[in-house]
């Protein structure tokens, strides 16, 4: 079977993901699809202790 490659492009569905997160003092899990119904901004950056 051909592997489906997700491509992040304007007008296409945002590839879903789940990841561990540090959020308001707690360690938690975050899933992008949990934010459906709201706008979401994904901000990638190279590394902590640098600026964004």
């Amino acid at each position, binding site marked *: 079977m051909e592997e489906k490659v997700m491509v992040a492009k304007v007008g296409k569905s945002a590839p879903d993901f789940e990841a561990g997160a*540090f959020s308001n003092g707690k360690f938690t899990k975050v899933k992008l699809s949990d934010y459906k119904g709201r*706008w979401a901004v994904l901000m990638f950056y190279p590394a902590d202790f640098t600026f964004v």
Partner: protein
Amino acid sequence: MAAVAARYQEFQDLNVEVLTISTDTVFTHKAWNDSELVRMVPEGVPFPMLADLGGEIGSLYGVYEEEEKVNFRGLFIVDPDGIIQATSVLPPPVGRDVDEMLRQIQALQHVRATQGAEATPACWTPGQPTLKPGPDLVGKVWKVWKPS
């Protein structure tokens, strides 16, 4: 990070959640927040900082840099249907502009609210005139809009 954290309320007012993503662990995120970021934003970072171990999420979004093993400064604005509506990518040494992020969100939300009946011209900010795309506007933009 701190620049966005300091203006988080403006994102919240627009019904926008912010997720930041780097290849650091959640423990490093906590250490950075607790040791440095709280000195810039008193309550600390008010949104989730995600641990993208191995750059898996960055790879999905095309911003993971294999050689350095870090994510570039990719920005993705996702609408309530889960559709990507805007992207931009900057290299590590260049920071983003929070005003421009908010402006893009407001423009996207305006276009969505009008179901595409209105478009926002260059440098548009809320309150400024919009354009109504259609046959009547072709060749006539100069009558209704001029660069400032």
